């Protein structure tokens, strides 16, 4: 049991854990499910489009006639072999506002870029601040401190 507390055991533990986790994660990412059925594909595409009538529901979730009709159309296009992006651009008559995923280009692209910019700025600020703290010494006696000490000693 004493073995469990030693640094060597800990280091070995971490190595074993790291490899275990990496292998599993690799398997989880690569092996991400069999190709989907039409139903699932329609579901996936429909969940990226907004129901034109409802307040704040996707085509996948809502039951109104327009949504059901759009789902049928999506199914038809999927069976023709169209990719999700092609399906979305074919169903164009409802306007751009019906796409729940904002386009990556044009003004709307800002909504994707700004968070990334914010993240970069945050990381840069954090590392700059941490670096500055590491550079300056921890505690140093200032002249004021020395003066205080002299004062105290003088009073004695």
């Amino acid at each position, binding site marked *: 049991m004493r073995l469990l507390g030693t640094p060597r055991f800990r280091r070995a533990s971490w190595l074993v854990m790291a490899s275990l986790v990496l292998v599993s994660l690799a398997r989880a990412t690569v092996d991400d499910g069999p190709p989907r059925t039409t139903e699932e594909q329609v579901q996936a595409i429909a969940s990226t489009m907004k129901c034109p009538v409802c307040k704040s529901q996707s085509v996948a979730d809502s039951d109104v006639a327009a949504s059901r009709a759009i789902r049928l159309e999506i199914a038809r296009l999927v069976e023709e072999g169209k990719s999700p992006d092609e399906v979305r651009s074919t169903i164009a008559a*409802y*306007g751009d506002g019906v796409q729940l995923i904002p386009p990556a280009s044009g003004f709307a692209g800002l909504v994707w870029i700004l968070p990334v910019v914010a993240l970069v700025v945050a990381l840069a600020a954090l590392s700059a601040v941490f670096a500055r703290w590491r550079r*300056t010494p921890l505690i140093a006696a200032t002249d004021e401190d020395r003066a205080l000490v002299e004062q105290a000693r003088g009073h004695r």
Partner: protein
Amino acid sequence: MVTPSSNDDDEVPDSSRVPRAADTDDNGGDEPAGGPRAALVTSAVIAVLVALLVAVLATRDPSTERAIQSPLLGRLAPATAGTTIDGEQVSIDDERGRWVVVNFFASWCTPCRTEHPELAAFDADHRAQGDAVLIGVTFDDKVEKAREFFAKRGGDWPVINDPENSIGVAYGVAQVPETFVIAPNGTVVQRFAGAVTQTKLDDLIARYEERTTDSRTRS
């Protein structure tokens, strides 16, 4: 420096630690890099951003009043063809050269009932003149109900039966009634959401005709 050995935050913090005098300058604490000026600059930047946000929010119309323009305007009308409720074949391609008014409706929809006599009058007028054609399309409706609707209220323009609402999707119909006006050259000129009146349709056609004759005479 003594590192507190316990992580219990409920313990009374060690107040015997001597704090630094607040006016030393060289190793500014945890505030943003650059000291107090940075705080002011950050505040100013945030103030500007918030002011812009408030300006945008203050000038928005309520979402219920936001009009949605159809992306079809100015484009060729989508394929509109099929079997009517009476069993005939009809297609707007056959009507090229004439105005086509495509009306999406359903028997259960109240504004559709309101606009029906207006459409009937429009159809009667223009059928006689031969310059415009009215075509109905069912949306979320059963064919027997559509037949009943017309039997009860009259009107004999062709009504395409669209059980899967695929023509509706092609036009971007969200809710009935919606009416689309297509010019003789096949482009969609206007989309009406809600019940239409004969006057609205006639005025639209008249205005468009005037503009095209003007441009023709000018060129």
